[in-house]
C-alpha cells in the first residue's frame, strides 16, 4: 500500500510523464481560444493521476496533446524524457466515444489490430493469445468473436480498456471513458478499473468532470479551473475508496474540491 509516503524519499526514477508550462491555443471561426494556460504536472510510475475540472478547462485538449494529436502552443510534454511530437503506441488513448472500436473487426480482432499495427506483436498467433488473455481480464472471453455493434456501452469500453492494456503502454490515457455510460454501469466500471490496476499497477492518466469519480479512481488529482484551464491544486486521494471506512475524509475532500471549483469565484478573469 502507498500508506506511508515520505516526501524526502526521492525515487531513482524520474517521472514517466512531465508536462511543463503547457499552453494550448486553438482557432475557431472567429476566435482564438486559450484552452490551457501554463499547466505543469508530473506523473510517476503506477500513478492513477486524474485531471479534474468543469467543461471548458481544457482537460481533454491537454490529454490529446499528451497523446500527440495537438501540439502545444508553448511548453513541453515529455514521456520518459523524450519530447512528444506525434501519436504513438506508447501512449494508448481510451476515448469516451463508443465508436473507438473498429466496427468491421470483432472484439478479438480489434485487440489484434492494435497489437500488430502498434508493433507489439509480429505474428497473428502471438497477438491472438495476448488478446485473449486481456479479454479474459475484462471478463469478455465469451464475446471475443462478437462485432462491436452487438455489445452494450459498458462492454465496448471494457474492450477498449483491454486493447489499451494489451499494448502495455508507458501510460494509459483515458478521456472521460465512463461519461457516456449509465450511472450503475459507471460505478461498476470504476471498480473494475481499480481491480485491473491492482493486478499490474499500470500508470494511468484519467480525465473526468466528476469529483466523485476523480476521488474513487485517482491516487492524485490535478484540479483545473476553466477559461482558460489553469492549475488550481494537486491533491492526494490514494487513501480514498468508496467504502464506509473513509466516508468522512471522502466527503471532506469532495467538499474541498467542490468549493475550489464552484464557490470561490475567480475575480478578474470571470466572464471572458
Amino acid at each position, binding site marked *: 500500500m502507498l500508506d506511508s509516503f515520505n516526501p524526502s524519499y526521492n525515487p531513482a526514477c524520474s517521472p514517466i510523464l512531465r508536462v511543463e508550462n503547457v499552453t494550448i491555443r486553438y482557432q475557431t471561426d472567429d476566435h482564438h481560444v486559450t484552452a490551457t494556460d501554463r499547466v505543469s504536472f508530473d506523473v510517476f510510475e503506477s500513478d492513477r493521476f486524474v485531471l479534474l475540472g468543469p467543461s471548458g478547462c481544457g482537460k481533454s485538449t491537454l490529454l490529446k496533446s499528451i*497523446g500527440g494529436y495537438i501540439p502545444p502552443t508553448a511548453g513541453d510534454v515529455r514521456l520518459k524524457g523524450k519530447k512528444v511530437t506525434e501519436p504513438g503506441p506508447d501512449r494508448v*488513448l481510451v*476515448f469516451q466515444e463508443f465508436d*473507438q472500436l473498429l466496427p468491421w473487426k470483432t472484439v478479438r480482432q480489434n485487440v489484434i489490430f492494435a497489437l500488430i*499495427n502498434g508493433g507489439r506483436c509480429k505474428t497473428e498467433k502471438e497477438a491472438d493469445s495476448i488478446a485473449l488473455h486481456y479479454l479474459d481480464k475484462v471478463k469478455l472471453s465469451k464475446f471475443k468473436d462478437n462485432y462491436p455493434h452487438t455489445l452494450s456501452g459498458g462492454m465496448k469500453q471494457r474492450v477498449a480498456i483491454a486493447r489499451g492494456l494489451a499494448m502495455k503502454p508507458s501510460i494509459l490515457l483515458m478521456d472521460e471513458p465512463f461519461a457516456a455510460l449509465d450511472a450503475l454501469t459507471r460505478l461498476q466500471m470504476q471498480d473494475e478499473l481499480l481491480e485491473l490496476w491492482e493486478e499490474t499497477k499500470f500508470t494511468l492518466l484519467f480525465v473526468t468532470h466528476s469529483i466523485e469519480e476523480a476521488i474513487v479512481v485517482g491516487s492524485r488529482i490535478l484540479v483545473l479551473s476553466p477559461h482558460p484551464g489553469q492549475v488550481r491544486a494537486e491533491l492526494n486521494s490514494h487513501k480514498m475508496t468508496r467504502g464506509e471506512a473513509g466516508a468522512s475524509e471522502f466527503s471532506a475532500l469532495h467538499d474541498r474540491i467542490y468549493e475550489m471549483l464552484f464557490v470561490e469565484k475567480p475575480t478578474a478573469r470571470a466572464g471572458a
Partner: protein
Amino acid sequence: MSIEVIGARTPEGIVLRPEYERPVETKPDAKDVTRKLSTWEHIIGNEMVRKAAVVALVLIAWQLYTDLADVQPLVFPSVVDTLKALFASMMDGELFLRVWGSLKVLLAGYAIGMGLAALLTVFAVSSRFGSDVLSTLTAMFNPLPAIALLPLSMLWFGLGSPSLIFVMVHSVLWAVALNTHSGFRSVSETQRMVGRNYGLKGVRLVAKVLIPAAFASILTGMKIGWAFAWRTLIAAELVFGANQGGGGLGWYIFENSQNLNTDRVFAGLLTVMLIGVLVESGFRAIEKRTVQRWGMQR
C-alpha cells in the same frame, strides 16, 4: 421524532409502507420461452420468396392482359411468346454474344472509372487543393448525363468500343469519387485518432481505417456508378447502335424492333432487367457480408 405508523401519511403526504427484500428467482415461470418457427413462418420470412411472389404476380397479370384484351402480338407479345423468343435467342447463341459484347464494354469502363476515382480521391484526401479539384469537378460533371457526351466521344474515338468506354468512365467516375470522398470525410475523428494511436498514417491509414470505415458510402457510389453505366450503355447502343464486332444488347433490341420482332425486343428488355437484378443482388450479398454484419447499415 414522531413514531412512523405503517399506512399513515407523513407530514409531507407520503403513505408509509413496509420494506421488503426477495431472493433472486432462478426458474422462469413461462414454459414457452423459446419456440421454433413453423415452416410457414420460415417461408414468409424469406425475402427472396416474397420477391419471387411479386414477380410471379406481375407475370400472371401480363399473361392475363394479353390473353383477355386481345392485343396484337406484334405490339404486345404475351409472357409465353416472350419467354419462347428469349429461349430461342439463347439457344442460337446470339443473345449471349450480345450480352457479352455489352458487358465487355461495361467492365472496361467500370474498371477504368474506379481506378480514376481512386486516384482522384486519394489526391482529394491528401491536400486541400485536391479536395477543391474533386468537389468542383464533380459539381460540374455529375449533373451532365453521360449520354450527352456520346456524340463528342464518337467524334474523338470513332464508332467503336473506345467511344462507349469513354462514356462509361464518365458515368462511373463522378458517382464513385463523390461518394468515396464524402464517405472519407464522414469517418469519425475518434476512429482516425485510434488508427494514428497505433502508428498508422498516410496510405496505411487510408487502407486500414478510412476505406473500411467509409465502405458503406463507397459501395453506394459503386452501385450508383453501375446503374448509371448500365443504363447509359444500353441507351447508347440503342441510339447510336453501331459497334464494330456486332454490337451489344442495346443493338440487339434496336435491330429486332426494326425487323418487327417484338417478342425478341421484349426478350432483350427482360435480359436488361435480369442482368440489373443479378448485379444488384451481387451488391446486396456484399452488403450483407460487410456493412450489415458490421452494424454500419441496417
